[in-house]
């Protein structure tokens, strides 16, 4: 079904493009949101990606490569949004949807882990976040990540290694800061 939509949208059929956009936008939004951690920026990244799909779809020779191509586009748009955001200064960061729910005592540890993850993740570069999302959320193999990012497999492995190391370092630094603040209090 998707292949048919890709081929028809590539020929310029608006109905097919509409159906295709609705079919893939959930996956695109999910990836963008996880890279950007911001609903509105993710929306902009999805919109830019869908427009690029419409503009450039006729150039995609193999419809079977559509999924990999759209992953590439959404990662690129998300990184661009993150950079634009960084240049633009501070933004309103939305709290997680369940942030107003008080956790049970035995859940404090898990929530602390998630808060540390959130803070650590935000300290990574957009490219580092993207590669972690592709592997740990989208479940892509190194070869698939390399294909999506257009880089050699070895480079993908290296980037993933450094991104993981950077996240761990950020979380550990965060933990030390919290401990130091606790001693001062």
């Amino acid at each position: 079904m998707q292949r048919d939509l890709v081929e028809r949208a590539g020929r310029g059929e608006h109905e097919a493009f509409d159906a295709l956009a609705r079919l893939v936008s959930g996956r695109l939004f999910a990836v963008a949101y996880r890279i950007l951690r911001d609903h509105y920026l993710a929306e902009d990244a999805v919109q830019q990606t869908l427009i690029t799909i419409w503009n450039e779809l006729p150039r995609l020779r193999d419809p079977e490569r559509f999924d990999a191509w759209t992953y590439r586009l959404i990662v690129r748009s998300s990184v661009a949004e993150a950079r634009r955001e960084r240049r633009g200064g501070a933004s309103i960061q939305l709290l997680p949807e369940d942030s107003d729910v008080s956790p049970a005592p035995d859940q404090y540890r898990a929530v602390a882990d998630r808060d540390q993850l959130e803070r650590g993740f935000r300290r990574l570069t957009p490219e580092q976040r993207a590669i972690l999302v592709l592997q740990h959320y989208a479940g892509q193999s190194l070869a698939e990540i390399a294909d999506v990012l257009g880089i050699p497999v070895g480079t993908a492995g290296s980037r993933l290694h450094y991104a993981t190391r950077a996240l761990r370092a950020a979380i550990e630094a965060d933990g030390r800061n919290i401990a130091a603040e606790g001693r001062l209090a």
Partner: protein
Amino acid sequence: MTALNDFDRVLGEWLDEGPNRAPDRPIELAMEHARSHPRRRDPLSFLRPDPMAPRSRGLGMGLRPGLVLAVLGLLLAAIAIGVGGSIQPSVVVPDTSPTSSPSASPTPFASPTGPASAGILVELVVAAGQPQTVDVIDESGKVLEATSGSPGDGQGFPSDAVEVKNIDATTVQLGWAGFPCRTDHDLLIGTDPLVMTLVRPPCEGVTDSIGVDRILILRFSEPIVAADVSITLDQR
């Protein structure tokens, strides 16, 4: 924090949380764009690069068959006319670089004829040690020139990272250090020129432990802000 062996699992679970359904707004706006930009027949579509074409490395390997045929055809025609005496036999190869349609996102194509588009080999000037080269593979098509800087004696740059700074609005300097053994680096510049990977192979055998600086200067066809450049040093 959670034990390291649980790290991947916790990270995966945390990333799983969050929305999986896109709002309607971006879809509707994209549809508006599609309606206001109806697809026109493109007679040169066979020359345009596939956005998911295999990554090319070096001049020539990324040529599309249609483009090769077009260039060969033009060359043969020009030669035939020259032999026939209509024109001087000097052949002017027309500019056959593909003209991409306006797009917000660059394409992953190493233009075979653009200025300094792929595989620029730079011999770096070093104060000591054996020869150093960088093969600049530019997938953005925006690098106009890649040259060596002139580092001083000793080590002023880090050996585990690459420092980037602006020389002017369109030129950046990359500086890093490494062992003085012969090193053939690769610098991969992505379709987004702000994303780079410098691959530095390790030295073989015994090396002098004193690091030496390397400086590479890149001039782009458009302004570039050093602070926005994300460069990974890949030490294999």
